[in-house]
């Protein structure tokens, strides 16, 4: 391994020639009992794309927020161009020349593009002047924007452009980017990389946070790896393999999934035919004649960029919302007119994207959260209108043990669990029923690698026992790991599901961009 400990001078790597712009020394940040950053040091150089790697919860976001002045460290010092500085607010960070592109966009939906950008610039910028500058900069960098458009009307890809243009207009010397490609098609990501390259040639430093290792290998000059709040190693990602980078992040080998042979096609257990529904409000997507069959024994995955109708489709399949036309069949029975409880009774189970507030009630104990989805599924949880708390407690223990859900004390409130453990719980709650049909939206979103691997294995195992598993995911790596067939959702329309073996990332990217014949033909439009 070519990694070095942070105390060694970073001798290895491509020539690190740029001047150090921002250096953090011994940063410590505590949240209650948790040490989110423990003596973290990092040096960012001009003209360099510096990757910050680590699992969810490794302390990346905390460090970034400290560098951007959004959080106040408990200890350690920051140095800007060799001078010790206090960055007390994002405004001060911007004044120094630090810009940030947020992962969950820090945009204001009800405001125009120009207004969004004005909020990040110093006072006294005239609106008319600003619109002109936005047009100029966005043209220069190939990031076309209409300053007068309302953000709510714009797709995610464009929203990221706003973030980037907003950042560029501040003429920063250092740009921090948090998971910028997670919402982009592969083609849009390539476009972004060109922009980044141009910026580094202009002498800009970029701190690039990502967990997509291939892309880090491709574009980053240097990488700092964090685990459990500490800097574990620094390296030149180009000289590493994706597997060695993953090992550094996780701290141990990431186990491969056991997929086993795909059994012969079973009977169709879930069928959607011509499923359609109009948009449910100004910020929602219409679902347009979705057709899909999922057979027993297979995992079918739906890929797509966030905001293309995944949540809306999930609601129609689960029965939280009834479709205006088309049908849903579970094991050959028509279920399109019945609600979620009847569909559960028919043998289907559902796991939504949002764990807290949708899949589980934050303020209720886990045993009560079991009643949430299983009050009418013949589990003996409700008798004569009364809730059987003993029975709920039994189930809670069983699920906790079978799926390795860890918590600080027995039967905790859902909000007290970490993301990974809560996700194991909400998936375990449904798997425990041995459902014939399982529909999961973003099964491992924001979950650490260990829990993610476990969850993916469980999904495969369930399908191999003869159930139909439908996974909606934005994570292409995950999709290729578990799916037998893949379909792509774009602006509420679903492409035909094709065998995973014949699908390529490039083709998925094209489908994501809607560059495909509506009839689902195999004609490449590129």
């Amino acid at each position, binding site marked *: 391994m070519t990694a070095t400990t942070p105390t060694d001078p970073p001798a290895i790597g491509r020539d690190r020639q740029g001047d150090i712009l921002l250096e953090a020394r011994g940063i410590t940040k505590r949240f209650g009992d948790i040490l989110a950053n423990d003596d973290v040091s990092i040096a960012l150089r001009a003209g360099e794309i510096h990757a910050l790697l680590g699992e969810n919860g490794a302390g990346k976001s905390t460090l970034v927020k400290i560098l951007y002045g959004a959080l106040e460290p408990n200890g350690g010092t920051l140095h800007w161009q060799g001078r010790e500085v206090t960055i007390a607010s994002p405004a001060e960070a911007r004044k120094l020349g630090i810009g940030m592109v947020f992962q969950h966009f820090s945009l204001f939906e009800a405001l125009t593009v120009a207004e969004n950008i004005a909020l990040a610039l110093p006072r006294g910028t005239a609106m008319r002047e600003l619109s002109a500058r936005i047009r100029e900069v966005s043209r220069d960098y190939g990031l076309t924007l209409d300053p007068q458009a309302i953000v709510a009307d714009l797709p995610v890809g464009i929203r990221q452009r706003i973030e980037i243009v907003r950042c560029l207009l501040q003429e920063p010397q250092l740009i921090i980017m948090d998971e910028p490609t997670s919402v982009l098609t592969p083609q849009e990501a390539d476009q972004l990389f060109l922009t980044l390259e141009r910026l580094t040639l202009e002498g800009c430093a970029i701190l690039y946070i990502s967990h997509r290792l291939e892309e880090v290998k491709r574009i980053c000059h240097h990488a700092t790896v964090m685990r459990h709040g500490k800097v574990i190693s620094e390296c030149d990602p180009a000289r590493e393999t994706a597997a060695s980078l993953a090992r550094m992040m996780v701290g141990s080998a990431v186990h491969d999934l056991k997929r086993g042979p795909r059994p012969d096609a079973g009977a169709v257990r879930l069928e959607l035919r011509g499923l359609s529904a109009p948009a449910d409000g100004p910020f929602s997507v219409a679902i347009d004649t979705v057709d899909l069959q999922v057979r027993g024994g297979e995992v079918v995955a739906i890929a797509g960029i966030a905001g293309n109708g995944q949540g809306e489709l999930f609601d129609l399949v689960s029965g939280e919302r009834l479709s205006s036309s088309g049908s849903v069949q579970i094991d050959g029975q028509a279920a399109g007119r019945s609600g979620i*409880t009847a569909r559960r009774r028919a043998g289907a189970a559902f796991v939504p994207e949002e764990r807290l507030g*949708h899949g589980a009630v934050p303020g209720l104990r886990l045993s009560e959260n079991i009643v949430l989805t299983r009050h009418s599924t013949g589990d003996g949880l409700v008798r004569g209108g009364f809730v059987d708390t003993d029975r709920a407690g039994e189930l809670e223990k069983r699920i906790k043990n079978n799926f390795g859900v860890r918590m600080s004390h027995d039967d905790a409130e859902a909000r007290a669990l970490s993301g990974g453990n809560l996700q194991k719980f909400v998936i375990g709650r449904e798997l425990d029923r041995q459902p014939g049909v399982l529909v999961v939206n973003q099964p491992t979103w924001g979950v650490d690698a260990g829990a993610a691997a476990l969850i993916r294995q469980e999904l495969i195992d369930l399908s191999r026992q003869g159930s139909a598993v439908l996974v909606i995911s934005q994570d292409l790596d995950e999709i290729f790991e578990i799916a037998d067939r893949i379909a792509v959702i774009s602006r509420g329309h679903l492409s035909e599901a094709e065998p995973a073996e014949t699908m390529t990332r490039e083709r998925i990217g094209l489908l994501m961009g809607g560059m495909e014949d509506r009839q689902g033909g195999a004609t490449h439009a590129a």
Partner: protein
Amino acid sequence: MRLELEKRAEHSAAMALLSPVIALALTLVSGAILFAALGQNPARALYVFFIDPLTASWSLQELVVKATPLILIGVGLAVCYLSNTWNIGGEGQFTAGALAGSILPILFAGFESPLTLPLMLLMGVAGGMAWAAIPAFLKVRFGTNEILTSLMLVYIAQLLLDWLVRGPWRDPAGFNFPESRMFTAAATLPALADGRMHVGAIFALIAVAALAVVLMKTRKGFEIRVLGQAPRAGRFAGFSQNRMVWFAFLLAGGLAGLAGISEVSGSINQLTPVISPGYGFTAIIVAFLGRLNPIGILFSGLLLALSYLGGEAAQVALGISDKTTRVFQGMLLFYVLACDTLILYRIRLGGPAATGKGA
């Protein structure tokens, strides 16, 4: 100095019990300051206000009489607030119940039978429900904000009452006073013991017990809490938000209506232009002080009834306006809401430099 909140991992059970107590203590301290500002001896004033009424049998009975509507309305409102339905029109539903229940004894005074009272009570409940059904319908059908509609209906109900007792329902033998005829014995709720206390108190106890069981033990109670805390999760569970709006409004309206007819039939014995010293609004405080828990509401209902009596006592004994009651009640709700923060958060006081910040 800076005041910051730190979220607890889970809700603090200790604080859930303590917060109303702390709130009460803070109210008493503020009350003492208020009395001192009014030139009274704070200790004596607080004694007159909060202890004196508990020392006589008649005033204890009066306490129960005043607590009855507060508790009946309060438990209904608690179900509304638990399910995130903001019904603040309890006063209007109380009035509507009183009006509907009074149809028999006023317009059909000759109808005296063992059925009279049960029918009156049923009509009272129905009246409260009907009044509550308006905001429920508008909320479910059009998405109209129920806070404002339920409140507007309070004013309308009060004007309706005013019109009836000055107009069509005025007692022909009442020397032109704006009052209805007195209710006959068959239309009067039986007294308990030998005084002002009436059967309404039993209704309140039954409502408390029934709702305590429903909320803590049944699927319906579970549904109420889930829809109130996380509507999206409620929909995922297969519970209907719209049906819950109907359920909460009809239940609260029915109980407020029952409180209304019980008060009129058991205590006032006729309709007058004003039949409530703001029970419907005070019940909001009762519900929150009781932490939206029926058992808690039993106690907070008694406490707020005491504040009414204390206000009257203080007026007589100390010459302080009985309006101080309302001030006490308002302060109490403020402190309860402030203290409830402690259930989910820890409070940290400290200057920005106290944490040993770098650089």
